[in-house]
């Protein structure tokens, strides 16, 4: 990498903006703005800075509809919205997927449309922390805010999460390095442990690396729980870790004053999936017999947690909510996007602020090649290659204000810093327009038939 001179040529600084990238939602960024463009970002990490100074070559600016020869053609907003609304109104099993990179205000419009038409609403949790949400339903949610971590925690455990790559400022801003009220010396007052089969960049910065075997997480946590309950391990090596090391680790964990377990996709994507998180939550419960412990999932997108909180509040279910029967339903393995796509059920797919083209397995995406796909996004991405209607949205936290929820569930209002390109619209406006147009095309809402307990008797 070459040396980059600092940017000195700018018109104004917009202070205290919120980063719209990962679940850390760093809200201390300064944007340097020139001629209505962000030319540099202060305080952000590499990820945040690169997203905010977006690639204008691939910015979606004008609505597009796929023509007869399979090429995207620029059209006006009315045509694009009408085409999209028609696809939605005509469908029997629409799926509205995404929402994690847009504002909670936009979700509000989305849920109204979904309920009216009988769609499935799902977000990226379905392919990342879905198992964590299930485990939370199974076992509980011993969470704390990141502020508590900063001020109190003296033992930090990262499990199956490479924070230095996926949440680069997490260690610096919340968990490991900052000085807190009870941790005046910052890093020196904290012990950091990373559990990961790989010697990841996070492991390199930790005091201790526990490299259990691939898929060995479940066995390893069980061993910790057994030791916590005062049992002796009968094997010398559990999941590739010598028994002495487990005893030593448990002793350290018991003696921590305030410990926090941050876990990532390393736990949710391996074979035991939600059972891994179940056992991690139970381990945290066991640890609370000795000391104060909490845990937090390392949520990926800046508002993926927002959708889950919003949906749970509105419908009672956090993700994969199915309105097709006229009331809300949630069934794992049935009303989730990947399962629906693999079973080839949906006949219309709306993707908003997400990229299934880049993140769904081939086996699921194949179905997107057979059905109409409507995309609301800010950049031309892999999903655009599969999209039939493209509606250019605006960039939350930069071009448009909105609310998002941090990984620990703290809502943060993200302010607007610059104007959006003239022909783009806010996501909220787009979804509202779609809703109104669909309602015109389909006059009857999708409601459950009246419940008759014993039809024969009537």
């Amino acid at each position: 990498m070459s040396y980059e001179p600092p940017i000195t040529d700018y018109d104004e600084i917009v202070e205290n903006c919120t980063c719209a990238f990962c679940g850390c939602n760093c809200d201390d960024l300064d944007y340097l703005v020139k001629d209505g463009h962000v030319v540099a970002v202060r305080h952000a990490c590499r990820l945040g800075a690169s997203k905010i100074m977006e690639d204008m070559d691939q910015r979606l600016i004008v609505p597009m509809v796929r023509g007869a020869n399979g090429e995207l053609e620029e059209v006006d907003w009315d045509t694009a919205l009408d085409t999209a609304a028609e696809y939605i109104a005509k469908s029997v099993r629409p799926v509205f997927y995404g929402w994690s990179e847009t504002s909670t205000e936009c979700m509000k419009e989305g849920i109204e449309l979904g309920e009216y038409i009988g769609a499935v609403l799902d977000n990226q949790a379905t392919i990342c922390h879905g198992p964590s949400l299930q485990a939370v339903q199974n076992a509980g949610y011993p969470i704390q805010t990141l502020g508590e971590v900063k001020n109190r925690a003296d033992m930090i455990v990262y499990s199956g999460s490479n924070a230095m790559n996926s949440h680069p400022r997490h260690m610096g801003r919340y968990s490991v390095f900052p000085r807190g009220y009870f941790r005046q010396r910052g890093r020196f007052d904290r012990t950091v442990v990373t559990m990961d089969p790989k010697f990841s960049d996070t492991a390199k910065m930790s005091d201790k690396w526990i490299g259990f075997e691939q898929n060995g997480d479940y066995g390893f946590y069980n061993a910790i729980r057994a030791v916590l309950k005062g049992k002796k391990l009968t094997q010398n090596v559990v999941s590739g870790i010598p028994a002495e090391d487990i005893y030593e680790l448990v002793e350290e964990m018991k003696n921590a004053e305030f410990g926090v377990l941050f876990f990532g996709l390393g736990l949710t994507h391996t074979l035991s999936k939600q059972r891994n998180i179940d056992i991690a939550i139970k381990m945290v419960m066991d640890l609370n017999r000795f000391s104060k412990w909490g845990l937090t999932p390392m949520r990926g997108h800046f508002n993926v947690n927002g959708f889950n909180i919003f949906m749970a509040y509105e419908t009672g279910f956090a993700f994969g909510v199915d309105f097709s029967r006229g009331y809300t339903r949630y069934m794992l393995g049935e009303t989730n996007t990947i399962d629906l796509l693999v079973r080839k059920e949906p006949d219309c797919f709306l993707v908003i602020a997400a990229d299934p083209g880049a993140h769904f397995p081939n086996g699921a995406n194949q179905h997107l090649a057979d059905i109409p796909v409507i995309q609301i996004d800010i950049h031309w991405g892999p999903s655009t290659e599969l999209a039939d209607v493209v509606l250019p949205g605006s960039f939350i936290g930069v071009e448009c204000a909105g609310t998002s929820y941090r990984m620990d569930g703290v809502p943060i209002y993200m302010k607007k810093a610059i104007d959006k390109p003239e022909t783009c619209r806010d996501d909220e406006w787009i979804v509202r327009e779609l809703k109104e147009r669909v309602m015109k095309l389909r006059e009857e809402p999708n409601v459950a038939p009246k419940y008759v307990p014993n039809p024969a008797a009537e």
Partner: protein
Amino acid sequence: MHYANTYLDKPVVGDLEEAATEGTEKVLHCMLNTGSDIYQGACKKRGSTLKEEYKNASGTCYMDPRDMAALGVKNWDTVLVKTDYGEVVVNAAKSRDAPHKGTVFICKGPWANTVVSHETYCCSDPTYKGVKCTVEKTDRKVLLMADLMRWVYKKYVDETDDDVVENMESLGELPVYKGRKWEDLK
């Protein structure tokens, strides 16, 4: 206008200690993991997905140097990764997290998608990690994102033959669409 630069041609990887030889194995049996790293994340969210940069950040198989020696591949040679779910041609590079002999890592993205398992075991989440795979050396090129999407899904081409689609004229590193307004606006 001078923008602060966040572009990077290729992820930074370590040099291999030994010069590549012929290699001792034709096909390696490995465990495939996928996930994100900082290069992939930065490039994807900036929106540069059509570019060469995304191809290198996301379409790269990070390997243990001993596995690379066994196959006889150098940094940025191409390898063919096959699983029960599909196959894909990606770059090979030395892993920053080595040693992890027998395990390879491909960042998430359209390339990894073609080889990971869509099996959710009724848990909503497909199996992105811990998929058995084989890795072999190849002369085929790594496709750019748009070409790869065309090759895998064939949504807007009439051709059904994989080899023909693979060798079609490239869609390039800029959006392909019909219209002018967009250009005027920039």
